[in-house]
């Protein structure tokens, strides 16, 4: 019987151990902890004639999925970086939902050296992110990056904690061919010029504006920002009182666009149906982030000759030159044992040849201002460099997190033509409070 008892104990222990083994970590050899701390000093291997980061392993969590153009460039950069410095970059492609696991993983101090995500979330959400100010100064980062994005991060956090990898800009993206065919020779800068361009495009047989429901709040937010400014929007978003403000005029402007028949048939449509109509030659322009150009080209198989202009200024507007700007950025964990190597890899990826490769293959704006944007995004680097303070994504609408979903739906209704006047729309907004 004693034998039986021992056997049962052994079996139970084996079962428990197998369960625990499943939850265990990677072999010690694969952990960054097995490599010597780098800091600003190259690892010991370099002192014996090897490459600078021989034996160093950097763990990166990417927001892309394996096989995407961005992921391919990151992999190519990792291979080239290993060749050059000896450092191995282990990349885990976590996909767009990386933000759902990053906070918990960073709090638990998982073996991550580099994270990649939206720069606003890196600044305001994630714990244990390293201050990169000194490292950035050492490479003269300011001289080849976008001041508006760096300043925004510093305003949020108090210091620079991320390096821009894929900058974004928002505004009107248009089909140059449709504009030319309609006789619109210059991008409209004012609301009056914009209306004139819309009429000419409509007369040429093409619908001037495409609009997907998913971006109705983003589009209306531009018009509202021109009339009210972001601070005022935030204030109204929190407390109500939209009626009697210039929000009525902003809503009326949209209602007038609908009345004049400037939106493409079906707008606001279900994403991405309406934006695709630019690729099919049925619409001429859309308010969106720069990624819309790559989306439309890929989804429709077309090669639209894209142009970009900032959202037009309105008469008596308060923030007439503001433009949405954002970025996917890279950051280093504060507990990384290879912070300098990680930073060197980030700079390797976001400058020079690799950054140009990213801009070209992923059809993006380059992170390195000395590089060239993908042809369809021509002018975006200059526009970003000229931006002083970027608009954040519907920030004023998102101040009141409790109402943001309802306000978004009201914006869709506005573009659906459900309100007779701007005042009616503002009354509907005020009814939420």
């Amino acid at each position, binding site marked *: 019987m004693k034998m*039986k008892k021992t056997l049962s104990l052994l079996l*139970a222990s084996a079962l428990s151990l197998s369960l625990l083994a499943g939850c265990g970590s990677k072999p010690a050899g694969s952990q960054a902890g097995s490599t010597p701390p780098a800091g600003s000093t190259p690892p010991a291997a370099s002192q014996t004639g090897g490459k600078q980061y021989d034996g160093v392993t950097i763990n990166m969590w990417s927001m892309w999925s394996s096989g995407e153009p961005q992921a391919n460039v990151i992999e190519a950069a990792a291979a080239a970086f290993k060749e050059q410095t000896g450092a191995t970059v282990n990349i885990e492609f976590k996909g767009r939902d990386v933000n759902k696991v990053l906070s918990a993983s960073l*709090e638990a101090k998982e073996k991550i050296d580099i994270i990649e995500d939206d720069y606003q979330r890196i600044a305001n959400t994630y714990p244990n992110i390293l201050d990169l100010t000194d490292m950035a100064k050492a490479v003269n980062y300011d001289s080849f990056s976008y001041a508006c994005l760096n300043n925004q991060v510093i305003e949020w956090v108090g210091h620079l904690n991320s390096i821009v990898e894929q900058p974004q800009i928002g505004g009107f993206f248009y089909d140059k061919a449709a504009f030319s065919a309609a006789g619109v020779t210059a991008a409209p800068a004012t609301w009056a010029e914009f209306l004139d361009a819309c009429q000419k495009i409509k007369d040429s047989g093409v619908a001037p504006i495409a609009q997907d*429901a998913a971006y109705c709040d983003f589009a209306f937010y531009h018009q509202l920002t021109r009339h009210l400014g972001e601070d005022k929007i935030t204030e109204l978003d929190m407390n109500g009182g939209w009626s009697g403000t210039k929000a009525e005029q902003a809503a009326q402007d949209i209602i007038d666009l609908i009345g004049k028949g400037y939106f493409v048939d*079906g707008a606001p449509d279900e994403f991405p149906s309406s934006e695709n109509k630019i690729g099919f030659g049925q619409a001429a322009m859309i308010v969106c982030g720069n990624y819309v150009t790559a989306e439309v080209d890929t989804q429709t198989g077309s090669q639209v000759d894209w142009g970009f202009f900032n959202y037009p200024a309105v008469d008596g507007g308060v923030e007439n030159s503001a433009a949405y700007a954002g970025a996917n950025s890279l950051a280093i964990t504060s507990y990384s044992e290879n912070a300098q190597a990680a930073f060197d890899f980030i700079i390797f990826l976001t400058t020079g040849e690799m950054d140009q490769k990213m801009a070209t293959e992923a059809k993006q704006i380059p992170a390195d201002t000395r590089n060239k944007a993908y042809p369809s995004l021509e002018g975006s680097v200059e526009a970003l460099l000229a931006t002083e303070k970027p608009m954040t994504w519907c920030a004023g609408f998102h101040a009141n*997190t409790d109402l943001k979903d309802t306000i*978004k739906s009201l914006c869709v209704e506005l573009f659906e033509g459900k309100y007779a006047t701007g005042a009616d729309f503002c009354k509907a907004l005020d009814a*939420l409070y």
Partner: protein
Amino acid sequence: MRKNKAMIFWFCLPALLSLVLMFVYPVCRTVLMSFFQVESVTATMADWSFYGLGNYTKIFGSASFMISMRNMLLIWFVGGIFTLAIAMLMAVTVTSGIRGKKFFRAAIYMPNIISAVALATMWIQYIFNYDYGLLNEIVQFLGGDKVKWLGTDLKFWAMTGSFIFGSVGYYMLIYISGIEGIPQDLYEAATIDGASKVHQFTHITLPLLKGVMKTSVTFWSINATTFYLWSKMFSPIDTESSTIVPVIYLYDIVFGGKGITKRDAGAGAAVGVVLTLIIIVVYLITERLFRGSDLEY
């Protein structure tokens, strides 16, 4: 005997430990967390600050949460009536001896083996599409004007309809298994006594399926309460009030959404607790309504 009991205990221990660690502990932690102000799900208890019923007050005072609850109840009630009624109709039809029973059973169950993402994409991009969608083709063929099936007025019902389409097959199989378990001699006796098919359905099939109906109502309640993917698919970029459900609300406040960096794991835990309570209440009501339904033939 005592030795054998010890052996049973040791063999059960790993499973018990796993259950406690992976199920009981998270449940207890979530319930506890719902009474504290906690920013991050993984924050240590030292970072929690007692909030009493504050999280519950917050979510029940939230317009978004109340809209999400209304949407969920509509999916549960209206969707439930349609799904379970259609499933019952299909099950009765398929088991009535029609030709091609296997084909119909497979065809109706088919949506369940297709990924819900693919299914939702088909509905959004093909069936409901404004320009070339199947429904608008039919409407135009009949001489009507195109309808915005995914506009703010109809989006919720478009989503619920698609969900019903994807769910009917599963409940049909449950009903089929219940119907096939009813002894055939009951129907034969009823036929000899002159009972019509409708009478046989209302006086034999339905009463004897009470137990199966109880199970399907419970399963449906769990499905409706944890409704998530279809809502995400019908609001691809950001949450909209026409499609928001409690799990989406929970997800947004715990992890943040597009352009949203504020997180509130405590309120998220409160939402989780409320949803669990709803399922328990529905289960208890169902148990009471269908009491004495466990039959042996």
